């Protein structure tokens, strides 16, 4: 209602949100909490389905190295003879992922240095986009390429390693079976994690304070002296974080490992011998012919894998965020 002077009446000033804003905030917050809900559900359903097996095996589920299912006549599990222990696959998971890091991290850091400090701008744009593209390649593509193209070369490298470095315990072999070894799986995984480690390292290197870079040049440093004195100390922790993100990705990989690795259920520290496995590929392998009880055990294995990758990724993201990257 207009007042006597023709001016509109003073509105009441308030910081209280309107009804529409309340609805908006509630909806958005609910949507935002979906990730919490999903992660919680993943944990609880895997734990629920795997509970009976985890309870039966206890800590032995992680440390045991046998996986055999014996059923009695009624179709129930024969507790005396059945054993579910994922130690060989757990060790295989960590071993393959570590090989991948040993191969991928040095190369990725060098490439990231090239992209940040050496590449001409046009070339840099091109290289960055093909590396991002590589991160989006499907894992089955890496599997097929690894099996048909990479494997012959890597087998040859493995033979060289065995010939010249055979005295290192990891490279020993009792039986000369070089095909489909953890080493080959590790190299394929390395190629899969290179884009991740490269782009995180590049992000972190690019954050190096410009004044320090220029100060180094002004003091007469060559490009390498500048990198060693300024960039590497600044970016070290970010590279560690990026490497751990790659570790998380490599530990959860299924199909690429399944195609190149000869999955054998035994603890194998000799990385050149063609036998190994990882938890994810073991789940895929055993799932096809698993009975009801075995599937529950597989759920338990999935739970272990889930928690392991969650742990590695969380630490990695915390490190990357602290050192100026954006994380993945």
């Amino acid at each position, binding site marked *: 209602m207009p007042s006597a002077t023709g001016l509109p009446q003073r509105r009441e000033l308030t910081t209280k949100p309107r009804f529409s804003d309340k609805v908006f905030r509630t909806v958005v917050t609910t949507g935002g909490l979906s990730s919490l809900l999903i992660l919680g559900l993943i944990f609880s359903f895997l734990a629920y389905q795997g509970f009976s097996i985890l309870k039966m095996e206890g800590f032995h589920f992680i440390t045991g190295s046998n996986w055999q299912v014996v059923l009695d006549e009624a179709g129930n599990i024969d507790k005396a003879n059945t054993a579910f222990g994922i130690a060989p696959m757990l060790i295989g998971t960590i071993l393959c992922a570590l090989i991948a890091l040993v191969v991928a991290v040095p190369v990725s850091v060098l490439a990231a240095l090239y992209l940040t400090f050496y590449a001409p701008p046009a070339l840099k744009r091109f290289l960055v986009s093909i590396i991002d593209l590589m991160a989006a390649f499907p894992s089955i593509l890496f599997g097929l390429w690894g099996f048909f193209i990479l494997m012959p070369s890597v087998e040859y490298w493995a033979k060289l390693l065995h010939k010249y470095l055979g005295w290192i315990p990891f490279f020993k072999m009792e039986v000369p079976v070089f095909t489909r070894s953890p080493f080959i799986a590790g190299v394929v995984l390395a190629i899969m994690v290179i884009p991740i480690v490269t782009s995180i390292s590049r992000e972190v290197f690019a954050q190096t304070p410009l004044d320090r870079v220029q100060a180094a040049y002004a003091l007469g440093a060559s490009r390498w*002296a500048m990198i060693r004195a300024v960039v590497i100390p600044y970016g070290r922790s970010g590279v560690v974080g990026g490497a751990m993100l790659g570790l998380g990705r490599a530990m959860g990989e299924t199909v690429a490992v399944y195609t190149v690795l000869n999955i054998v259920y035994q603890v194998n520290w000799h990385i050149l011998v063609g036998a190994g496995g990882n938890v994810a590929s073991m789940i895929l392998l055993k799932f096809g012919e698993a009975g009801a009880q075995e599937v529950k055990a597989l759920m338990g294995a999935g739970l272990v894998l889930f928690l392991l990758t969650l742990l590695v990724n969380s630490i990695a993201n915390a490190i990357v965020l602290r050192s100026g990257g954006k994380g993945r």
Partner: protein
Amino acid sequence: MTTVQSAVVVKPTRPWLAKPSQRLQSVGVFLLALAISYGVVAVTPMKGKLAYAAIFFIAFTALDYLLSYFTLGKSAAKDVVARGFIVSGMVIVTAPILSILVTVLLRGYKGIHASMFTTDMRASSMNDPVASGGLMHALIGTFLMVAIALIISVPLGILTALYLTEIRGRFTKPIAFLVQAMSGVPSIVAGLFILSALIYTVAHAYSGIMGSLALSILMIPTIARTSEEVLLLIPPDLREAGVALGGTQWRTVALVVVPAARSGLVTAMILGIARVAGETAPLLLVAGGSDQNNLNPFHGPMASLPYYVWKAYSFGSIESVRRAWAGILVLLVIVLVLFTAARFLSARKGK
């Protein structure tokens, strides 16, 4: 007559560029290293591409080091060696990408024929000649499952991003942390989760919708993180202007912020699709796989491109492996197109 004195044009000097003599020297070093690598491979028992590359690298680095050491000094020589390592690191990173692209192209195109997009595999086996049958069922399956996954993940992903950028409530830090944690969930775990939560308890059968649900678990974090980055790029001025004009927060977000970020949000969706289009493991667990067209995502197992490739590869015969490469080529082309579209959209935004 007076003479017009022409202005003296000073040629700009570029002291940072290599002089012709220096260029000649580096070409000489390159050729010498090449010669040494050929010579060593010819004389010693070392053979193969690896030997050529390794000896060339060692010879080139050593010669370059010596040359710079004697012409420019010790620290320049170190710089040269470091550059050698850094450049070769880049080459090693690029080589597999190029090898993958070339391999898929060369091996895949033999299996491509027009009728593969219009027939399924119900009448042919993987071992039949490539010309019979096709992957229409796989294309349909992938399309349907990814589309449904998109319908599920886009609202959740964008709402999460809006929470992180617009509301910034007390859960901002934990949610940002959880989204990152979620993007690290292994794909097989997503499959196992759907299996344990829905298939063993409710559905008791494979179907396309289960595949979509598993895919959306992998898609949500990608969409949420990309959208968050895009929304953070929207200048705060726009939000303040919206509120200053009397808009509620809801109207500001819906009418100002989201439209301004539109192309970025589309990019987020595209990257989400590219992330899941090639997922194999979860679909093997929850969507089963079939050899014929299935248009109903709620009933019956559903094929997908990665499943088709997987099955063809597992058969192991020459013909089936050729099918697998053809399938991979189709999948790769899809990913490439999506990726280029995303790049194009975000590049246009930047200008």
